[in-house]
């Protein structure tokens, strides 16, 4: 049995990726199961989805802790989620990047597939939805299913126009994917394990280790304690404030859903990147055009 974990952001279609892969496998007479992880996190938040593939019937209905393959849909996730956490020794990683993929290779990987999925999605689908694009990269590295089966799954799932565009994106990604194997890999200096920084920042995990005796009566909660949950992780772009144009009107501050604009002593505003989810309302509503949304740098 092969176990795959997809990382994306809420709304990017990680669950659809897992389901399309499963559908393609089922079409080929294989056995497959796809399932999401459920939580309170919403659009933009890091989420994961899972897929199990096998030649035999699958009887497991448990969370996948040690996947063989990890697929990362969004480049901004590498810094905030421990994407390779639990990945098996010699496991495979599929990433969306515009950079030199060698930077993402670590010694115990069995293989790495890299594609600039964001670019392909933007050019063909006109939207930053990278889920089908990443499947092209996945099957390029590991021939789990035929490209044609994936295309059929897409045709069944979407209307013709959308399906054809996705198939086009899938095929282009298949062509443009770069594969790195351990043999290609050159050890780079100073690059630590990718897991460590990610671990500490994974949302709320540290808070969840209560025994029943420690629970307060009625499970009451201290006020304002979500401040421990740094939603800056969700952001793929951030507001850049131009002091020269700012008229200190405060609209950015009042319109922020995440209380992430902070009023300063001199009347200007600053951004609290711990919480800013990068929605862009501030930039859109600024009457002076003093705010620009900049893409988060990857890696």
């Amino acid at each position, binding site marked *: 049995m092969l176990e795959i974990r997809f990382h994306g952001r*809420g*709304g990017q279609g990680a669950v659809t990726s897992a389901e399309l892969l499963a559908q393609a496998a089922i079409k080929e007479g294989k056995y497959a199961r796809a399932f999401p992880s459920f939580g*309170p*996190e*919403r*659009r*933009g*938040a890091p989420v994961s989805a899972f897929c199990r593939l096998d030649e035999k019937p699958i009887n497991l209905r448990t969370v996948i802790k040690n996947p063989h393959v990890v697929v990362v849909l969004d480049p901004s996730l590498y810094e905030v989620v421990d994407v390779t956490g639990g990945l098996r020794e010699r496991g495979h990683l599929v990433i969306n990047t515009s950079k030199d993929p060698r930077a993402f290779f670590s010694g115990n990987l069995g293989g790495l597939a890299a594609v600039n999925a964001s670019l392909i999605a933007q050019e063909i689908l006109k939207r930053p939805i990278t889920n089908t694009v990443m499947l092209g990269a996945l099957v390029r590295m590991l021939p789990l299913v035929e490209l044609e089966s994936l295309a059929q799954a897409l045709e069944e799932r979407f209307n013709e126009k959308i399906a054809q565009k996705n198939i086009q994106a899938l095929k282009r990604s298949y062509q443009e994917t770069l594969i790195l194997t351990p043999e290609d890999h050159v050890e780079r200096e100073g690059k630590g394990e990718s897991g460590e920084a990610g671990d500490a920042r994974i949302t*709320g995990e540290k*808070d*969840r280790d*209560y025994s029943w005796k420690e629970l307060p009566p009625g*499970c009451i*909660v*201290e*006020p*304002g*304690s*979500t*401040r*421990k*949950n*740094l*939603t800056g992780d*969700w*952001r793929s772009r951030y507001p850049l404030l131009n002091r020269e144009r700012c008229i*200190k*009107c*405060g*609209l950015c*501050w*009042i*319109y*922020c*859903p*995440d*209380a*992430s604009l902070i*009023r300063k002593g001199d009347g200007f505003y600053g951004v*609290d990147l*711990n*919480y800013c*989810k*990068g*929605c*862009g*309302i501030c*930039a*859109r*509503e600024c*009457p002076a055009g003093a705010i620009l*949304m900049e893409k988060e740098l990857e890696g």
Partner: protein
Amino acid sequence: MFAVKTLTDREYLAPGHRGCSGCGQAVAVRMVHKALGQRIVVACATGCMEVISSPFPQSSWEMPWIHVAFENAAAVASGIEAGLKALRHKGKIDNRKIKVVAMAGDGGTADIGLQALSGALERGHDFLYICYDNEAYMNTGVQRSSSTPYGASTMTTPAGRIQKGQATWKKNMMEIVAAHHIPYAATASPSYPMDLLGKVKKGAEIKGPAYLHILSPCPPGWGIEAEDTIGLGRLAVETGAFPLYEQEEGKIRLSLDFDKLIPLEKYLKGQGRFRGIDQERMDYMQERVLEMWQDLKRKAGLRELRPSRFRKEGVKWIRTS
């Protein structure tokens, strides 16, 4: 527009909540609580706001806050109000005012919670009820409610080959509330912060039940970009789809009047949920929105719109009340 600078820096909805990027309801809730301050108790219905703000062991709320179930925010608030009143009477707590606030979405208000709301309004509890209307069951993944606008596609009113989205007109909660003859009711929008804050303050100061209906644009549910939440909220008002007004002692007062409305099409075109809506439906909606706007103006004692009722551009910035 510089008036927002006079508002408190205190945040009563702490950041770190799990709301969507660009959540219109989160913007509204932040504003509402800046107006309400600390001396309140909140009863919250099940829904998006509850789920994104209170995963044990964390909470975004800085004031005493309780969630019990979906359909009973008004009844729980009634209980809090009755409890505080009794304790105050018996000298068990001091006499300082504590305002009781109930909050729910459109499903928790117009559908499953309607009975509890009606009961609480009729009994005359001293509380403020706030409906954050994002026009569908967003917490469960966008299913229609009785507050979903006509023509909108949701997961249970999809735009199919035969049926095209929601087939019924949005339930008018303000009229239902008005039938209870409560002292104060108003509609508000986070796109008009000072207007919203003024109404919240008024609702909180009035003795007896007050009702606020706040349109809260929802990026995933409405099919809009996160950054467009506030702009869409403004368009809803300027097209007449969601007029801002107050009902006080049986009188209606428009909070924001326009000589001309922006064509509804401009509001609908920006939203994925209205994608593919045909001209016939668009015309029907336009006509009905106009009728309702004219009706509202009559009730407010204002002159109706003239035949040349549309204008091309919106008012650029908000008028503060």
